[in-house]
């Protein structure tokens, strides 16, 4: 059985041993206020959501109640790795003063324990590839999918625009730390840049219907009105190549795909005519074709 050494629970635990009714008398006003307003984030002697009371008292020792009051009313951020504390300006000054008294008293003689809290922390295991995972990605909508292919290639597929975005192999390419938008550290090998991929799109928003995993590889399913598209992303036979296998239903005329791209990789098609970054396909060719992205 796991015990959670939260000061709140410890205090209740201790109080439980007392005869009933004695709980309130054993706690100071400051302790009660701390348990109401602070304990969710601040533990006595270890880091939690916010710093411990032991750490806090280093900045706001006995006598520094004015600075403590100012901080509580309008907190900033001392540790960039922690979340910012919400302002507690609704608390009357005497309550905050009581809390400060309690912080000073309860931390006397205590040192901060090492480690953030009792969780072991989770390390991403080695994933069996291909691995398809939803993620925030740069230069794509926040509803994107990362495809980690066997070998060292990765691809980004955007479920909002319903399109393949780019391919990269360098880990440094994607920076997802912090709360900001993910960024490219280095340009990807291949990235499609045309505002609209399909000639029939005509401003119509595609409908994303999900994906199937076939031997672990994703086959995306989406539609533009009556046109149904399946797009499977797999490794090519040659190392360093990515294939996109398309099946279109409901195409009534020839179509053009605008495959304008940037990056060092090359794209080729097993059907139609590819010129100036545009792939022209007849109605019959559009039913089933494959694009091949290969390294130089």
């Amino acid at each position, binding site marked *: 059985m796991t*015990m959670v050494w*939260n000061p709140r629970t410890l205090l209740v635990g201790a109080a439980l041993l007392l005869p009933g009714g004695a709980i309130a008398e054993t706690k100071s006003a400051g302790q009660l206020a701390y348990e109401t307003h602070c304990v969710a984030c601040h533990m006595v002697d270890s880091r939690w959501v916010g710093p411990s009371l032991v750490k806090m008292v280093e900045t706001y020792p006995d006598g520094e109640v004015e600075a403590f009051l100012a901080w509580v009313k309008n907190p900033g951020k001392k540790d960039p790795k922690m*979340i910012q504390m919400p302002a507690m300006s609704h608390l009357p000054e005497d309550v905050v003063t009581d809390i400060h008294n309690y912080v000073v008293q309860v931390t006397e003689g205590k040192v901060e324990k090492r480690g953030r809290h009792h969780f072991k922390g989770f390390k991403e295991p080695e994933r069996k590839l291909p691995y398809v995972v*939803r993620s925030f990605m740069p230069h794509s909508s926040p*509803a994107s999918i990362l495809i980690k292919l066997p070998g060292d290639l990765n691809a980004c597929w955007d479920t909002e625009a319903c399109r393949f975005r780019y391919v990269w192999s360098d880990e440094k390419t994607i920076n997802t730390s912090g709360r900001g938008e993910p960024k490219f550290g280095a340009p990807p090998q291949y990235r499609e840049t045309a505002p609209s991929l399909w000639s029939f799109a005509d401003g119509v928003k595609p409908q994303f219907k999900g994906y199937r995993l076939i031997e672990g590889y994703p086959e995306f399913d989406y539609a533009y009105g009556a046109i149904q598209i399946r797009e499977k992303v797999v490794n090519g036979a040659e190392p360093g190549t990515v294939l996109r296998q398309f099946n279109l239903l409901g195409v009534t005329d020839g179509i053009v795909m605008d495959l304008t791209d940037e990056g060092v990789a090359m794209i080729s098609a097993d059907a139609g005519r590819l010129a100036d970054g545009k792939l022209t396909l007849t109605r019959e060719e559009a039913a089933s074709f494959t694009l091949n992205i290969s390294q130089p």
Partner: protein
Amino acid sequence: MKTFLALFLMAASIGMAATPDWWNYYTIEDVPLPETVDHQLGGVDVLSDGRIAACFHSGEVLILDPATGEWTEFARGLQTPLGLVEDDDGALVVMQWAELTRLRDTDGDGVADHYETVFDGFGISGNYHEFAYGPAKDKAGNYYVSLNVASNFAGTFKTVRGPFSQIGLTEETMKSWQELGDEWPKIKAQAGRMYSRVPYRGCVVKITPEGEGSVFAYGFRSPDGIGFDDEGRLWVTDNQGDWRGTSPLYHVEEGGFYGHPASLVWKPGWTRNPLDVPVAELDAMRTRAAGLFPHGELANSPTQPIATIDPEQFGLPRGELIIAEMNQPLFARFLADDVGGALQGTMVPFLQGIELGIGRHRMSFDEAGSLWIGKIHLGWAGDEGLKKVSWNGITPFLVEGVKLLKNGFEISFNQPLGKQLPNLEVSRHTYTYHKEYGSPKIDLQNVDVSGVRVSADRRTMTVALPWIDRGYLYTLTLGETVNHAGAPLMGDVLRYHVVNTVGADAASKSDQPFENLLADADLAAWRPGDKAGRWALTEGVLTRGEIKAGSLNTKEKFQNFDLRFQWKISEGGNSGVIYRINHGRGLEYQLLDDENHVRGKEPLSSSAAIYDIVESVYAPLRQAGEWNTARIVADGNHIEHWLNGVKVLETEFGSADWTERFLKSKNAKVENYGEGGSQIQLQDHSANVHFRNMRIRKLD
């Protein structure tokens, strides 16, 4: 053996006069989890075949065979999954950051191979706080999900999903918050502490099995907990913060607004910045919480509500909710009480103790009646792991129900009370509804108990109080309470949120028939001198003429009555229904276009008030030109005003409170004001006012 041991422990604990211990009635065990997943559970659901499905923060759905203790992977690669349910055909439906996804195993190998998008028609701004919770499933198979608003500790991504609401700080500012550096903290308050710039953040969204989504309700902040009870009622919990003085539990109905204003931008036709709307107006619009969790005492971040099961399986009565919580080592039971057509009720602590730990997020009952509990922290206060709580067969002594009375509470117990009466203490307080984060307890006062009565079977205790204040949370502490056999009361602090009070309501007991005051085209029920073509009745609708019509009075006098009618008024209009008139002045049910009339800013002169004497507590008033339903009950000294199905005012004529208010009013010098019966008057205050369905019943 287990039962014997527990009995022994219970007896021992009573003998030692120790504080009651829940673990005399329940056991808790840790369920081992594989090391390959993050031990934070976003969701847990007992499947129809008895296996346990859980989704993890690292993106997997795993299924446990409880017989072997073996976990197998069903799905992977999900983004922050925060809940899952099973479809009738065995598919699992998971709410993740970007969509509601149906996971199907189409080839029967036990692993999902089809990740079908059920619904992704809501926005994602990239803000770190836009969690997506649910789904809860109704009996028709519809899913309900709740969408967290964004936090102003960050702005949005430059690339967002969904249209960007143009209400508030400019889109460019919101998207360039990182480039703004130290400027952002200075201006972020203008974004709102928690904000909604992409659809339907702060809303509950209903999604058909086929994937058609529509906004079901507005006004949420961090609505982590969403679930149905046995009667098909939807319950949603939310977290203390801005516009949340303390954490609430809501009974959610279609079209409702539940208090956090950010999501109002998604209401059709809404154009104003929610931060610019006067608090009084938001207060009038919002539905009150059915239950409240005092912050730091009962909950800081409540999570899932789950309906209780057969009492033979888990030891609790049916028809209750159990609500989990992230920060405190206890659960709450919620006992609903229907008052005046609205659900409100009592929170009672359940399963309190450090053994429980914190971080309890999702729950599901298995066939044997054990409660599976998944834990999470997401970097805030919380915990990890999967726990299983089972009842050991000994029924704890419990409060089974709390019913609000006109002047007190009726508390029912599942076992007879012992000879010694509880050491009863009653207090009450409220919270401020405002944009600031949380609220201290406001107006906290001890309430003197007028009397306590215990029923002959000792299963009911009536607590009489001098009066009940609407809008307050009453805390009743039943210290040192034991049953007939000396077992302690488990959960002895009752917290009842009074949204509606109980009237004498002689009105509903009367068997006199209603008289239709608008039955005759020639307005036979009304004084002939008044009408002369100036008020017109057409197809049941009474309309004040365009010219100065003068007020219209009934022929008959009424003193004690129940009057029901519908009314609408022109933009900026003012009118009233006046009764118990002396010297030309009486009690006036104010009719006003609150939004556009200057008097609508003052509670004492807003719609449904007794003009200048008693304000209505909150008035879900419709816009000018739309019909409102009203009701006036005048029964002796007891006066009630109702508006659109809600009792918005209740007062006792002649009470100390009444007298104080009356002496400050414009009528203070009117002799015998409000005494005796009189004709009922429809006021001509120069506005185009309309009435229909006007019926009256005498209560004499």
